[in-house]
């Protein structure tokens, strides 16, 4: 199963504002929970999320333990040119992942 889903409109008009939805699959362990033998479950959350549209950063977020599992983001940006939107995120284990989606901009 994909680690994240990105949703953008199929076609956006140049200059139009459009919505980007990003859903990351992640347990977002707060570090405050215990497992069934009484040991603390180590903190492991996605702490940074970046989205880059044709090389330029359009969204940046820093997350903290208050964010629930499978964090869901929605933001708006302006369509400039056809190309690619890439979202990149890093968690406390140091793992960085990314997901891309193609974007078509019409005149």
């Amino acid at each position, binding site marked *: 199963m994909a680690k994240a*889903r990105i*949703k953008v409109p199929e076609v956006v008009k140049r200059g139009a504002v459009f919505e980007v*939805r990003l*859903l990351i*699959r992640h347990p977002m362990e707060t570090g405050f929970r215990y497992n069934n033998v009484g040991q603390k479950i180590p903190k492991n959350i996605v702490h940074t999320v970046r989205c880059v549209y044709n090389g330029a950063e359009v969204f940046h977020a820093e997350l903290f333990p208050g964010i629930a*599992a*499978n964090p*869901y983001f929605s933001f708006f940006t302006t369509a400039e040119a056809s190309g690619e939107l890439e979202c990149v995120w890093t968690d406390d284990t140091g793992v960085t992942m990314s997901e891309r989606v193609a974007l078509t901009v019409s005149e």
Partner: protein
Amino acid sequence: MPPYLTRRQFFSLAGSLPFVRPLTGRARANTQARAVVVGGGFGGATCAKYLRLADPSLEVTLVTPQPQFITCPFSNAALVGLRSLASLTYTYQRLREGYGVQIAHAQAQEIDPTTRRLTLSDDTTLTYDKLVLSPGVELRWDAIEGYDAEASTVFPHAWQAGSQTLLLRRQLEAVQDGGLVVVSAPETPYRCPPGPYERASLIAHYLRTHKPRSKVLLLDAKDSFTKDGLFLAAWERLYPGLLEWVPGAQGGRVTQVDTRTGIVHTEFDEYKPAVANIIAPQRAAAIARAGGLDAGTGWCPVYGGTFESRIHPNIHIIGDAAIASPMPKSAFSANTQAKVCAAAIVALLRGEPVAPPALMNTCYSLVAPDYGISISAVYAVENDTIQVVPGSSGTSPLDAPGTTRTLEAAYARSWYANITADTFG
């Protein structure tokens, strides 16, 4: 075949254990008391009957608005034409004539727990020594934006069997080959935990048979569900590409519907299906929430041993409306709770100790007409709390041969014949 009980062991435990004392022990004391039972489903009908069996001097009135009852069990089969709705319909004739239960066809409207009076929609008032509430669930019209009683005439829930079942059936029959059918499943707790998954399975079976280019999309608020391993394996084998499950973590929760445009919104996507079956979140029916019986939570807290309300004395709540977790909200649970409750009521009226109950449940699900799977457990009560007896619970094996699935489908039909005979016969 451990960890299962055999059918015989089950019936001996579930049916008779609480009654062993009153029936075989001392001579029966006549209580001459009055019991009123609200709700004519598996919980209410069973309880009324077993109250009369346990103490024939007891005056028992069953309050139910409908002259007949259409069962939710096997209504998924009726939905796709495997059964008729008539074959799922029962009357209260046997309860009245065979067991002396008085039937009041009215809606229970108001309870006065202090004077022990129940007011009905026809303005009659019944006084009771013990009141049993088994009214089932009602759909919550405030849970999904745009989904209310009116919207359910376009996007049926079909979670109360009857006209809603027929509406959804007509809609499925009208789907063109290649059409999209959406089934939504709510967050727990809700009536019949495996129900949405059985329904999606049988709709997929119907579409594969008649409209093979169509698709079922199961939009779920949850990331896991009862028997999910068994369902997912069966779907992969029987309905590849035809049935897709979208868990909550993938944005499967339905947040909004628009019956005018025909669009179903989840947290992540929008769909415009040919048929949308919205199984909305639920709560205990209104009468079980009257007078704060649900403590504001939507479901009614009870003492596990007697099913008496934790809020008001002399009111017992069984079936889907009660918080009997870890027991699921099922017909089987309601039926077994009804017997425990009836035995407890008779013991309480006689001033006798209440025997510790044995509760149990099995949920059969059909993934295809001849492909059955099940989950079962036995429950005991400790400190008024219901608990699974360790080692008693289990599901059908994941790697069983096809013959096991065929047999379990037969067991499911046999279970249905038995429980309806026990409840209404």
